[in-house]
């Protein structure tokens, strides 16, 4: 199913993607994996997927500059603390993970040669031999033990502490073997370990500003909030890549400035451009767009523990008030897929296809609002440019509300500081969630009672129990049944409205090749630096 279309367009891409999604190959593969005792080895099957890559030989050499959209003095090279896309991109260039997700969403081995378990509880990780860090030290099991265990240390402030909590111990059996023991069985561990936060750093590292990892690039300079420059790691363990000699990364927060920088040739890649900028890029020769429809979404969160979200009818009303089709059509200019208020994307095998997106129904919404007694109140809705398209979505909901007498007071706040000051905190606010590889991670991060990012403060013992139960189940069908029900629960009970899954569009210079879409997000799942090459 390799797609070799040279002149692809966004719509072609979407079509091909859908074909893959509906295809059986992947499902069969995954079933096989589960049945076969979950033994993934390096070099798994490559699944075809929409791509703009030429079937040409990559060329080595050259320098590229690329720009993301957010950065601050809080920029970090500590993978455990990475929180912005900029951090992910830098970490991907400097470090490696034990496993990673390829463009098809399949878990592949990276630093590990294999990650195996017979009971999904005790896992054995075999490391590649001869992998060296940038400073010349050889990768050993102690580095892995250190890298994983530090997520459990509250002082580290790991962003994935809650996911890491299921790990009870990590032991180095020998220099190249690590044994990971989980509190409960979790069949997803190889996929979990492919998350960006679980990058492998050197044992004992406290100062992360040097960025010493095993990755494709060595850090040359790094100024938080300004930029980083990395050069090709000549001793990289993978036989192919990286192709480019040096890689400079920074953020241009203003969307137009980012696009203009690309068009003027200052940078070769402008990450995540707004749909309204597409017209401009398309009108200029020598530039291309790379679209990724992954599980990324911007959602409206109503905290169930605060006014007015504590009134179930208000939450229900809002779910009818949001005009998903208009968001898809006008706000996203078609670069989105309708969603149904739960975070699992249609690309996932665990997607509950029975759960249809709620139709825009202002009358029903009005009914609920009247029942909740919120008509006539002015309800603040916090949005920010920090959460993609949230201001526009907020405006649409507001307009819809105005038509039925529901007064929504949109409060646009600065992007700077949005995530620390408003997200998770305001009673009604917008969030933006990057794709995660498994339902388990999504649910643990966002919906379990102790989830760090429980956006709507959704707390359900039943849900927690189901999460735990599904995690240990090796029977994929049973898991799916549980996950299906959980999706319904989220959709009906949680205070999160997920109107659409957003497509991410990166704009790139025509001579930048090798960039493929990746389910983990734009910029090739933030790891593009290793794979791209410059065509003369």
């Amino acid at each position, binding site marked *: 199913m390799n797609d070799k279309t040279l002149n692809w367009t966004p719509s072609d891409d979407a079509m091909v993607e859908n074909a893959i999604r509906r295809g059986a190959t992947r499902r069969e593969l995954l079933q096989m994996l589960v049945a076969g005792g979950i033994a993934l080895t390096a070099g798994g099957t490559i699944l075809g997927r929409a791509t703009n890559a030429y079937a040409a030989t990559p060329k080595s050499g050259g320098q590229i500059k690329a720009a993301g959209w957010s950065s601050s003095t*809080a920029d970090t090279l500590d993978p455990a603390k990475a929180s912005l896309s900029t951090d992910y991109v830098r970490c991907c260039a400097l470090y490696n993970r034990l496993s990673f997700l390829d463009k098809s969403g399949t878990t592949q081995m990276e630093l590990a040669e294999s990650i195996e378990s017979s009971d999904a509880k005790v896992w054995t990780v075999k490391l590649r031999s001869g992998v060296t860090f940038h400073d010349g030290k050889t990768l050993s099991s102690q580095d892995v033990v250190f890298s994983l265990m530090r997520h459990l240390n509250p002082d580290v402030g790991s962003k994935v502490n809650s996911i890491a909590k299921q790990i009870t111990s990590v032991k180095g059996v020998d220099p190249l073997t690590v044994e990971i023991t989980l509190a409960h069985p979790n069949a997803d561990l190889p996929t979990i370990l492919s998350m960006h936060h679980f990058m492998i750093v050197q044992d004992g590292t406290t100062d992360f500003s040097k960025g010493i990892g095993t990755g494709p690039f060595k850090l040359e300079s790094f100024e938080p909030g300004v930029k980083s420059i990395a050069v090709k790691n000549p001793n990289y363990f993978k036989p192919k890549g990286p192709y480019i000699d040096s890689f400079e990364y920074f953020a241009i927060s203003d969307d137009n400035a980012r696009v*203009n920088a690309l*068009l003027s040739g200052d940078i070769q890649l402008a990450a995540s451009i707004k749909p309204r900028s597409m017209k401009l890029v398309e009108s200029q020769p020598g530039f291309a767009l790379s679209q990724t429809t992954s599980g990324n979404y911007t959602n409206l969160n109503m905290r169930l523990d605060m006014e007015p979200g504590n009134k179930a009818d208000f939450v229900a009303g809002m779910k009818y008030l949001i005009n998903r089709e208009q968001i898809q059509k006008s706000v996203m200019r078609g670069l989105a897929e309708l969603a149904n208020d739960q975070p699992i994307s249609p690309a996932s095998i665990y997607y509950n296809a029975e759960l249809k997106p709620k139709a825009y129904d202002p009358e029903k919404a009005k009914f609920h609002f009247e029942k909740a007694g919120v008509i006539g109140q002015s309800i603040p809705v916090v949005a920010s440019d920090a959460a993609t398209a949230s201001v526009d979505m907020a405006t649409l909901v507001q307009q819809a509300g105005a038509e039925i007498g529901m007064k929504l007071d949109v409060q646009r706040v600065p992007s700077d500081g949005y995530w*620390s000051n408003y997200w998770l905190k305001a009673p009604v606010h917008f969030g933006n969630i990057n794709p995660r590889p498994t339902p388990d991670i999504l649910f643990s991060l966002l919906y379990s009672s102790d989830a760090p990012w429980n956006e709507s403060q959704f707390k359900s013992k039943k849900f927690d129990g189901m999460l735990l139960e599904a995690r240990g189940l090796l029977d994929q069908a049973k898991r799916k049944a549980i996950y299906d029900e959980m999706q319904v629960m989220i959709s009906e009970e949680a205070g999160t409205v997920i109107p659409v899954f957003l497509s991410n569009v990166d704009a790139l210079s025509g001579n930048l090749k090798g960039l493929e879409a990746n389910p983990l997000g734009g910029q090739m799942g933030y790891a593009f630096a290793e794979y791209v090459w410059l065509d003369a």
Partner: protein
Amino acid sequence: MSAYVLNLITVRLLIAALTLLIVSFAVFFATAMLPGDTATILLGQAATPEAVAGLRNAMHLDQPAFLRFLHWLSGLMSGDLGTSYVNNVAVADLIGGRFVNTMRLAGITALFSVPLALTLGITAAMFRGSLYDRLVTILTIGVISIPEFMVATLAVLIFSVYLKWLPALSFANDVTSVWQLLKVYAMPVISLTFVVAAQMIRMTRAAVIDTINTPYVETALLKGASRPRMVLRHALPNAIGPIVNAVALSLSYLVGGVIIVETIFNYPGIAKLMVDGVATRDLPLIQSCAMIFCVGYLSLITLADIIAILANPRLR
């Protein structure tokens, strides 16, 4: 220089120092009023009550505000800007390179815009009422009336996107040659020149015209002096005070007011640093940046005052 002038200058410097003290007070307490408990924000998920209390203690946050102010002030006096809350780096290190960048951009813009503005302002005054004067006046009104992000964006579209003469971004750190320097700084300097020059042109023109209307310039005319001579030799030396003041005010904008230009051209200066600081509630960083802006403003204004004093022969 007479004792009187020295005295005047000393008074100006003392006034500046006093103002700075008031500023530091205002800055400290304004930033301290930013909502959110610093310790809680810093600890994030690990914010247990004990940890918060411990951190508050370690950061002296449990002390009365005024005591903290004195701590901070004595730190400033000894050159210690404190440590960033966010990444535990000395604020001085964070600011260091950015400060150089800001000063460099300000300096280059000043080098470019001040002579341009003075020339236009003086010549417009010299040929007051002429077509040239009207043209300059209308242009400056036009420039004053356009938001700076429009100017910057248009400049990028024209010079970078369509003509491809200049880079759209400005990386202060990439400069290795004079040619590169010109290229790197061209765009922000052009945009900023638009912003600051117009005011300077207007003020210069007004100041020169004011002095042209004096009896001693009329005397020069009646001596048979040419217009340029009247303006350059007679009016200008007496207009130095107000002109220098206008220049200082405009240049002070270059220190702290360039946030929009820094954003559009991705130029790593202190204004953006301060915005980051606000975003992350990094109080020591915000305070230090604010103090830098105030020191910049006050030194420029004080310098202008001193130049005006020195340029006034009545005080010599």
